[in-house]
């Protein structure tokens, strides 16, 4: 880039550097500048979103306190991974971390993306520039992960203070929260490309709510008939909950790896799906 022009009006005939990208794949979709989208997001967060940012952290903590301490007195001890007996609070804490990672990622990749697309028209402005839709998608997913990272760290601190962390493996719960988030966010963004109205957003909530209520978050799924159990086990959140629970108590086995693999596959699928839907999402 040449030195800034001293003229008040732009020097119209100053040729801009042109990079030959004809052979680069995705030249139509990617301007290799997702960094600027992230910068914009961080600027917005730094300027005004502090209160909201912090409030998002309280939701899982409130659940933990109410369900763990209040309901815990009624429930007592529960069978955890590997047949060990754990207090109810320690049983639900990892599940709430997984759920919170899912909720944050889905909110950011559906509601937030849809709002910026249709109402704030933030993406419309971005796509008038030399950014491509892939820059926007990558930037937004990174920002969602950044928020998820902050919340996961905060929740881990609460778990530590409450004495709910009993294994060094629990350190992995933060990166696993990000893995869960990236899986949901990548699929969520592809789903958003099919949305046309806010009403359809309610449908997403209607999938999320039962997933939270039934995925062994607050009670073991063994209370249900086997057919329903298999259905729950096909859903992503159950794998996230199990994975977190294994790490929290340090019960690590092949199954732990299997749950993690589920999210790796989900992420690969989600990224592929979102990429082929990028035009439909942003260039409509």
């Amino acid at each position, binding site marked *: 880039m040449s030195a800034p022009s001293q003229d008040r009006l732009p020097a*119209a005939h100053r040729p*801009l550097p042109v990079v030959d990208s004809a052979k680069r794949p995705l*030249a139509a979709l990617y301007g290799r500048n997702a960094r600027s989208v992230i910068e914009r997001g961080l600027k*917005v967060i730094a300027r005004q979103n502090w209160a909201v940012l912090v409030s998002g952290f309280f939701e899982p903590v409130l659940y933990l306190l109410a369900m763990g301490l209040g309901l815990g007195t009624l429930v007592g001890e529960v069978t955890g991974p590997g047949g060990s007996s754990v207090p109810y609070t320690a049983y639900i804490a990892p599940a709430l971390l997984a759920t919170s990672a899912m909720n944050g990622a889905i909110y950011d990749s559906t509601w937030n993306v849809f709002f910026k697309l249709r109402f704030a028209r933030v993406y419309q*402005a971005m796509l008038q520039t030399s950014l491509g839709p892939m820059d926007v998608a990558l930037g937004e997913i990174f920002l969602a992960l950044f928020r998820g990272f902050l919340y996961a760290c905060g929740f881990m601190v609460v778990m530590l203070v409450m004495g709910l962390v009993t294994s060094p493996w629990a350190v992995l719960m933060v990166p696993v929260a990000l893995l869960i988030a990236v899986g949901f966010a990548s699929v969520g963004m592809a789903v958003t490309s099919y949305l046309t109205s806010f009403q359809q957003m309610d449908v997403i909530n209607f999938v999320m709510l039962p997933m939270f209520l039934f995925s062994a978050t607050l009670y073991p799924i063994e209370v249900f008939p086997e057919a329903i159990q298999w259905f729950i086990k096909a859903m992503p959140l159950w794998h996230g909950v199990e994975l977190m629970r294994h790490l929290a108590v340090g019960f690590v086995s092949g199954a732990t790896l299997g749950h993690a693999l589920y999210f790796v596959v989900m992420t690969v699928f989600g990224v592929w799906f979102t990429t082929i839907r990028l035009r439909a999402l942003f260039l409509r």
Partner: protein
Amino acid sequence: MHPVMSPGAGDPIVVAEDLTKVYGENRAVDGISFSISSGESFGLLGPNGAGKSTTMRMIGGTLTRTSGSMRVAGLDPAERGPEVRAHLGVVPQQDNLDEELTVRDNLIVYGRYFGLPHSYLRTKADELIEFAQLTDNARAKTTALSGGMKRRLTIARALVNEPRLLLLDEPTTGLDPQARHVLWDRLFRLKEVGVTLVVTTHFMDEAEQLCDRLIVIDKGQIMAEGSPRSLIRDYSTREVLEVRFGAQRNAAVVDQLADVATRLEVLPDRILVYTDDGEAALEEISARGLTPITSLVRRSSLEDVFLRLTGRTLVD
């Protein structure tokens, strides 16, 4: 070796051939071809829904075309969108300023989308704020700006990458007359320093003020092409006499006016009498004892060209 773009005036910067965009059954843009030279000010005139904004978005590659070809600065926007847009400044029909940022940050963040360095943007933002006459509002949120201020900021923002080609989609729609004139002044200055302007508008006065050459579009097709002056010469008369006889009588008197005019247009509320001398025509009409309730003599405008070409008015 990449073909270096010589930005000499007169070279075509946008070339569209048989450009088509189909939404389901609706042919929004129906096989139009045009070429825009570097340094000229080019207009797309037509009513709402004619296909102007759709065409604009295909120039920037933010909308994929159904068929036809498009070259902007020698590149296909559908294949090389990010690069094509690096040459462009875009002013969309509705402002899409970033409401979560201040005026100054809007310019800086937007510049970052082009990969421009902070060192450049810091001074550039101040220059653009001055150009947009927003010095007192630099630290304000964009939500606090008036409609005219937002529009000027959107135009300033479009200049952050020093584009060779500025796309303006209905730049003054929704602004009061004073704000429009301020804006036109800014655009004139850009034109003077050689920025190529592409303007869509459904206001004939705007097209006449800003455009060297324009195409008239209706239902996705080009109806006519030329300078505002030549279009008026080819499709209208020098002057127009507008007369009203009241809703009941307009139809009744129209037969008696036929030989006074080159051409007549009967609208629901008035009759347009096309002639080279409006005052003389009015005298002749009065001499026949047909006194209109109101009358007005004016110069022909692009509105009349459009009425002639399509049988409809530009603004419903």
